[in-house]
C-alpha cells in the first residue's frame, strides 16, 4: 500500500489523522453522549418535548436557515464582484470580508445591537420608516447570523470563480446563448456546489452561534431564545445532563441537515457533470 503511493509518509499521516480526530473530535463528543446517558429515555423525551425547548429549536434552526440562504445569495454577488470586476479599494474591501472571522463574536453582537436597536442609526431609520423593530426580535438574530455567515460563503465561492475559465462564457456566447442562458446553464452549475458548501458552513456556524446573537436577540422565552442560550441556562442551574441532552439533539439535527446538504451538493455536481 505504502509502496504504491508516490507521496511518502502514509503511515504517520494516517496515524496522525486518527489520533487527532480522536482527541479533538471523538472523545469530547462521546463524553457528551455519556453525560446524556445519565438521563432516562423518559427524562430525555420530557426535555425535548418541552414547549420552550421546542420553540428555541424552531428559532435557532429557522433563523440559521434563513440567514444562510440570504448570505448565500449576497455572498455570491460579493464574490462575483470581487473576482470579476476591479474597482478602487478592492483589496481593502476584500480584506474586510474576513473581519467577522477575526472579530470576537461578542464584540460583533454588541456593535450590531447598538446599530440595529430602536434608537440606533439603522434601527431608528427602519423603525421610523416601516415600524419594524430589528434588535431584540427574531429578526435581529437573522441579521447577526447573516453577518457571521457571509464570509463563509464569499470565501468558498471566490476560489472557484477564480478558477472558472471565462473562455467557457465566451464559447457560450459565440454559440448563441443569451446572457441569461450563459449564466443559468454555464456559470451557475459550476458555482452551485461551492455556494452550497458556503451555505452549509454558514448554517452550521449559525446554529451554534452564541456571542454575536445573545446581545441582539432580546432572549425572551418562547420568542427570541436560541438553543445555545437554553443550554447555558441549564448549566447555570447545574443541570449538566439536561444541557448535554439539548446539545446532543442539536448535534444530531445539525448532522442530519449537513448530510442532507452534502447529498444535495453531490447531486448537483453529478448533474452538472463534475463527477
Amino acid at each position: 500500500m505504502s509502496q504504491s503511493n508516490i507521496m511518502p509518509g502514509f503511515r504517520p499521516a494516517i496515524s496522525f489523522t486518527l489520533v487527532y480526530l480522536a482527541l479533538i473530535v471523538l472523545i469530547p463528543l462521546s463524553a457528551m453522549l455519556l453525560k446524556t446517558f445519565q438521563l432516562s429515555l423518559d427524562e430525555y423525551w420530557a426535555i425535548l418535548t418541552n414547549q420552550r425547548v421546542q420553540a428555541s429549536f424552531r428559532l435557532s434552526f429557522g433563523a440559521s436557515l434563513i440567514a444562510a440562504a440570504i448570505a448565500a445569495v449576497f455572498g455570491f454577488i460579493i464574490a462575483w464582484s470581487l473576482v470579476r470586476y476591479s474597482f478602487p479599494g478592492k483589496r481593502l474591501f476584500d480584506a474586510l470580508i474576513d473581519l467577522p472571522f477575526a472579530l470576537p463574536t461578542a464584540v460583533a453582537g454588541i456593535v450590531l445591537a447598538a446599530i440595529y436597536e430602536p434608537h440606533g442609526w439603522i434601527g431608528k431609520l427602519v423603525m421610523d420608516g416601516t415600524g419594524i423593530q430589528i434588535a431584540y426580535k427574531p429578526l435581529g438574530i437573522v441579521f447577526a447570523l447573516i453577518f457571521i455567515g457571509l464570509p463563509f460563503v464569499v470565501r468558498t465561492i471566490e476560489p472557484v470563480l477564480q478558477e472558472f475559465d471565462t473562455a467557457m462564457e465566451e464559447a457560450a456566447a459565440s454559440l448563441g446563448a443569451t446572457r441569461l442562458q450563459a449564466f443559468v446553464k454555464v456559470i451557475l452549475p459550476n458555482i452551485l456546489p461551492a455556494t452550497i458548501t458556503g451555505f452549509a458552513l454558514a448554517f452550521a456556524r449559525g446554529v451554534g452561534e452564541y456571542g454575536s446573537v445573545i446581545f441582539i436577540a432580546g432572549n425572551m422565552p418562547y420568542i427570541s431564545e436560541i438553543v445555545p442560550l437554553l443550554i447555558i441556562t441549564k448549566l447555570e442551574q447545574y443541570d449538566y445532563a439536561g444541557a448535554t441532552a439539548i446539545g446532543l439533539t442539536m448535534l444530531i439535527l445539525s448532522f442530519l441537515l449537513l448530510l442532507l446538504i452534502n447529498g444535495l451538493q453531490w447531486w448537483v455536481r453529478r448533474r452538472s457533470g463534475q463527477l
Partner: protein
Amino acid sequence: MKFTQALKHLFFTLTLLLSGTALADRTLLNVSYDPTRELYQDFNKEFIKYWKDKAGEDVNVQQSHGGGGKQTRAVIDGLEADVVTLALSYDIDQIAEKARLLPKDWQSRLPNNSLPYTSTIVFLVRKGNPKGIKNWADLVKDGVSVITPNPKTSGGARYNYLAAWAFAEKSYGSKDAAKDFVQKLYKNVPVLDSGARGSTTTFIQRGIGDVLLAWENEAFLAINELGEGKFDIVVPPVSIKAETPVAVLDKIVKKNGTQDLAEAYLQYLYSPVGQKLAAKHFYRPYQPEHASPEDLKRFPKLELFTVNEKFGGWPQAQKEHFDDGGTFDQVYAP
C-alpha cells in the same frame, strides 16, 4: 468560559515563571462575581502592603470576575480558587455540595455569617424620573419598561425577582397575588439579558427601558462613571438585603499551601481598612463605624428583608421559583 479562565490562569503562571523574581511568591486566586471588580482591585493593593508589613512576604493576588453562576461553575469544574467572594450563599453551597471543597457549615466560620459587606436592589431611572417610579408597584404600570436580567442565569436578577415577589406578597396578601404581580412585571421587560452587567449596558448604552433594577453598587457606578447627570437612583421604601458572602476553599488552600494567606485575606475584609474600602465602592459595610461618613451618607435608610426571612433560605427559594417548572417558568408559559 472555563477555558478562557484556564487560559488566563495559564498565562498568569507563565508570566510569573518568566519574571524570575516573582518565582518564589505565593499567589492567591480570588474568584468573584462581576460588580466587585473595582472593590477588589483596591483591596488587593492594600492587602499586599499589609501582608508585606506583617509577614515580610511578597504575595500576588489574582482576581477573576464574571457572572456569579458561571464563576461558581468554573470553580466546581476545577478552577483553583483559594477564596471565593460571590453574590449568593447558594452558589457557595453548591461548591460545598458538588465539589466538596469546603465544609457545608462554611457560613458560620466568619463573622456576620461570612458577610463582610452586603448590598441591596435599587431602581436606576432616567434623569428627573419621567415615569414617576417610586416603589415596586409602579413597575407593573402600563407603559413602564423595566430592565432586569434572566433570574435563571443571573444572581442579581434572582434578588430582583425575590424582592418584587416579597413586596407583592406583603402588599396584596397572597402568593397568587405575588405571582400575578411578577407576571405583570415581566410583561414590561423588553429584553432579558443573561447577566447584571448586560442589563446595565442595555439600559445605559442602548437607552432601552425606563427603569433598571440594579445592585446598589452597580447603580452608583452607573451614575458616577457611565453617565453622570443622565440617571437618578430611586430607593424603594422596602427592598431585599443582598447577602454576598466570602469563603476560603479548604481543599484548594491545603493543596496550594496558602491557608494562612487566604484566611488573613478574608479577615482583612473585616478590618477597618477593608470595611472602609467596601463602603467606598458602594457596598454596605458590616461595621459602618470604620467607614468614612461621606461614604455612608450615600446609603439611604430603607426596610430590608433577607432571603431567609421571606423565602426560608436559598435552596427553597431556588426550588420554588427558579428551577425548571418554578414560578419564573410559569411567568412565561404561553
